[in-house]
């Protein structure tokens, strides 16, 4: 258990300290009253001796006290549960929101480099684990400690000798619990791993079912599946068996305690040696003995849960401790408008220091220029976009917009100067209208429709069940790839930014539709500096400047005609489209 993690978690609980204190007080009150109950019951029973020898009158005050004890204890039990729930849920809510906000400040390098599933799992599952751990931890810690101390005191006041017996036997239960936990843990780890292997296999093979069918791989797949499944069976039986041991063992230990208390207690009662005890007290003792062992039985379970919670908390803290993007300087320029002159000067950049990607790149774009970037996959085309938008910062050299270094401009305003359409369309769960108006929430319905019309999206939107109010499922799953892209284009059309970035924006749209959108783009690009990355060379022939990239540097530049005439890399690339096979 790591103290630093605990300290940090406690910091999150601090705003809820009042409730935490209330929980502690409730625990003390409810547990001690719960423990006081059996004493009262015992005293009452001592008034029942035999036929004709029952003192009902003496029992009345005892039973009334008992009733009051019960009611107050119940009330505080509820308060304890409520407070701990409140504290742990609110604490993890803050933790969760903070983690999400942190992700928004992390450099894209981090987001690109980490599996999204893993990050989501941290925000969702790990936070839940922390909450469960806190809940269990607080409740069990408070009640457990109070119970042990309380029962010890009560038992000691009744009879020290029998108390000693109980205290001597309890380590047995602790030992048994620890032993089972250790056995179980090992098996669980193995079971989890095998289960993961099986899920992975199924996921892969069902996901690739088309391929499985094509190659008639079904039998081979089932053979492999059965093999993993058999292994899962073997460790599953063990894991389940070991974990199911804890209840019977606990019952056994409790049984032993009961037997010992009943027997030794009775002997004491008869002989008065080593210390006298009444029958009612034996009855109280029986209850206490069980209460006393309970926290010990549960301690291992709670410890495992707390350990899991701490592991989860560490995974969250790992995200929180990542270095954020360097914030904008306080005096950074807020650029609302720009001419559209972009200068890239001696720019070098690499994602990975050992592999150079862009080296000493220079580009000069004047207002209204259309700059196309072409080249084979992995040559660094998309990287330029990342640098222009400051998703990544250059290692060396600089980018100037209207003569201002982009590092001196606030990120928000710099990015606002560009309208960007990426190859991978991104829509969020919401209405079509919300998605188009994402960049300008104040846009009127007319403006939204006008933008959609420009992007040739209006007609298909009208065919959707609720038109512009149709709610898109997660990531726009109920639209085709091409339709989603049209919505993204409409989004940019609505914002009407001074500069444009199109990164393979039309690659998932069939070429006939593309021609139409291209017209809209051409319209939009008038007077705006635009950067276009494209795979299909036919789409960039009209560009003012074509930059041909290969292995991180610009190897040729010029207009389409110039480059064709040059007859080198670009010309080859272009002509290979039409090579007869």
């Amino acid at each position: 258990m790591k103290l630093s993690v605990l300290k940090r978690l406690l910091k999150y609980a601090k705003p809820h300290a009042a409730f935490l204190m209330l929980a502690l007080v409730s625990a003390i009150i409810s547990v001690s009253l719960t423990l006081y109950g059996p004493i009262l019951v015992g005293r009452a029973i001592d008034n029942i001796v035999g036929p004709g020898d029952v003192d009902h009158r003496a029992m009345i005050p005892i039973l009334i006290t008992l009733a009051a004890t019960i009611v107050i204890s119940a009330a505080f039990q509820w308060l304890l549960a409520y407070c701990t729930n409140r504290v742990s849920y609110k604490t993890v809510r803050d933790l969760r929101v903070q983690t999400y906000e942190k992700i928004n400040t992390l450099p894209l390098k981090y987001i690109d480099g980490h599996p999204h599933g893993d990050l989501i799992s941290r925000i969702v599952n790990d936070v839940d684990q922390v909450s469960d751990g806190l809940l269990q931890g607080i409740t069990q810690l408070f009640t457990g400690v109070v119970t042990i101390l309380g029962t010890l005191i009560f038992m000691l006041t009744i009879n020290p000798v029998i108390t000693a017996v109980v205290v001597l036997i309890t380590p047995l239960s602790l030992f048994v619990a620890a032993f089972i936990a250790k056995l179980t843990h090992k098996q669980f780890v193995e079971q989890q791993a095998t289960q993961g292997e099986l899920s992975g296999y199924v996921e892969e093979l069902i996901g690739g079912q088309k391929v499985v069918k094509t190659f008639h791989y079904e039998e081979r797949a089932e053979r492999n599946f059965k093999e993993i499944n058999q292994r899962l069976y073997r460790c599953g039986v063990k894991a389940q068996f070991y974990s199911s041991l804890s209840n019977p063992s606990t019952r056994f230990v409790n049984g032993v305690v009961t037997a010992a208390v009943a027997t030794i207690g009775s002997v004491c009662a008869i002989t008065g040696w080593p210390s006298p005890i009444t029958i009612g007290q034996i009855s109280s003792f029986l209850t206490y003995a069980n209460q006393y062992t309970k926290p010990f039985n549960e301690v291992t379970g709670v410890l495992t849960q707390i350990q899991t919670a701490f592991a989860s908390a560490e995974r969250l803290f790992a995200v929180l401790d990542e270095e954020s993007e360097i914030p904008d300087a306080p005096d950074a320029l807020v650029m609302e408008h720009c001419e559209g002159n972009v200068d890239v000067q001696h720019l070098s950049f690499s994602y990975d220091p050992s592999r150079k990607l862009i080296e000493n790149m220079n580009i000069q774009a004047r207002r209204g220029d259309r700059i196309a970037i072409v080249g084979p996959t992995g040559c660094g085309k998309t990287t330029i976009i990342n640098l222009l938008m400051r998703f990544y910062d250059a290692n060396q050299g600089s980018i100037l917009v209207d003569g201002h270094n982009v590092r001196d401009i606030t990120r928000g305003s710099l990015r606002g100067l560009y309208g960007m359409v990426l190859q991978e369309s991104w829509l969020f769960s919401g209405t079509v209208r919300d998605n188009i108006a994402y960049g300008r929430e104040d846009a009127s319905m007319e403006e939204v429709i006008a933008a959609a019309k420009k992007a040739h999206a209006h007609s298909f939107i009208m065919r959707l069940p609720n038109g512009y109010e149709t709610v898109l499922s997660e990531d726009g799953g109920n639209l085709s790839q091409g339709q989603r892209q049209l919505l993204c284009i409409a989004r940019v059309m609505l914002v009407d930014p001074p500069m444009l970035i199109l990164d393979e924006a039309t690659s998932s749209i069939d070429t006939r539709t593309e021609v139409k959108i291209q017209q809209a783009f051409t319209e939009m690009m008038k007077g705006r500096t635009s950067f276009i990355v494209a795979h299909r060379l036919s789409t960039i022939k009209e560009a003012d400047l074509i930059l041909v990239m290969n292995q991180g540097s610009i190897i040729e530049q010029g207009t389409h005609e110039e480059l064709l005439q040059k007859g080198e890399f670009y010309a080859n690339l272009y002509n290979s489209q039409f090579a007869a096979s």
Partner: protein
Amino acid sequence: MLKLARFLKKYRLQVILGPIFKLTEAIFELIVPLVTAHIIDNGVRTGDVQYVWRMGGVMLLLGVVGLGCALVCQKMASIASQGFGTVLRDELYHHINTFSHTEIDRFGTPSLITRITNDVNQLQYAVAMLIRLVIRAPFLALGAVIMAMTIDLQLSLVFLVATPLIALVLYVIMSRSVPYFKVMQKKLDKISLISREGLSGARVIRAFSKQESEEERFQLAANEQTDTAIRVAKLSALLNPLTYLIMNFAVIAIVWFGGSRVSAGGMTQGEVIAFVNYMSQILLALIVVANLVVTFTKAAASAARVNEVLDTQPSVVEGCGASDPVKRSPKIAFEQVSFSYTGHAGENQEKCAVKDLTFTIEEGQTIGIIGGTGSGKSTLIGLIPRFYDATQGQVRVDGINVKEYTFAQLRGKIGMVPQHAELFSGTIESNLRWGNEKAAPEDLDRALRIAQAKEFVDRLPERLQSKVSQGGKNFSGGQKQRLTIARALTGNPEILILDDSASALDFATDAALRRALKTETKGMTVLMVSQRASTVKAADQIIVMDDGRLAGIGTHQQLMEQCEVYREICLSQLSKEEAERA
């Protein structure tokens, strides 16, 4: 849920014996308070120390034997439940493998995975609980009441009042809070959705500087989840105090009225103590019962989801085997083929993915298939290896209806390269061997060469033994595509189908691939689906698809002259001169 009981058949012994052993333990457990009562009444009252020790020994013995019985039961429960799960998983996976794409698309891969993992686990757990607790818990509750009744019928009235009261509290609180758990799950799903969107849309969010509004959206979802959680907590926090309250008031009643009974000579002091003990046993047992109800509600939902899979009949049924090919027949023939994903062609031609297709393909030809997104290209080729069955009309390969072949026969003839390049975890070699388990090293080499993959594979330090991670994530898109092409070629198929499989290749590699296919695979019939006019231009025949219909078929020259759709596609990609250059 009962329908799944057949998977327990193998474990009949465990299912019957397990609860019996458990019951034995429970009986012993019920005897213990009785023994305690005897110790007090017979031992302490008469001062018989010997008797006390003897009874102490009996209690210890009961404990040991009880433990033994419980362990036997737990072991049986583990074997039966895990065995049940294993058999069920095998069966499910086997059944899923018989599904055609129609069924798999209907369920969706993630849903099938959850069913085969989580749902089976849930059922497995329910089986274990069935053996371990279903008999034990109600028995303990009931047993405690009965034992109390045998001790003293009058005083046991307290039990008859308290027990239903506790059960009622359990029922009311559980039935109100359990539905909330579904709501909570939904709120949690929302949180995970917003996180996912936040990550996948990081660039767009930052481009529009929408971080703050996204954070607000997230905070809103997180608050909602927290509020619901706290609301549920308020309710379920009532459970323990209320049952505690009822139980203890019952204890007060027992002591008070028990006093009268003892005074009247109907009961002893020890028996009153036994009564108090039984009361706490009932409470514990009832709480277990309540939890069991939750477990089985969940299991019933899982069982329904599993049964849904098992009850689904594959729509594509394997043929019983075809004889030799019909001589002089075309390699592939489509005869008035229509297909609709809903399975009802005819009345509603509008909903068909492909409509009324008729054409033939001769052996050794190279065929290009072109058309816009959603025009039915992928559906068309999916009908050949029977991923789907034609709703109307017939598809013939070598003159024989595809439905007559066994899957192995039919699919053995076909090498298919899917649109989405998919590799499986293993090595490059293990992936290539999907096409043919017994392929010779030269065959693998040749396949890689034709697929233009040899060069980059040879450059890898471990060449064919290089590790492939799940989905082939450690390779670039272009590399993956070339490897999937090589995989299809390893089987040396008679028909090679490339479903837009060269989209991630640059034009030069694409051209080289086409050249190699032409020269190195004599006699192989090649079907090439593409959006690129340049890819299909040189094919022997080009099939042009438009909105599910055949818009034209012929050579590039013929189609340029006759087919409006084809001309439009070509002109949108190529300049006039290029399009007209043969």
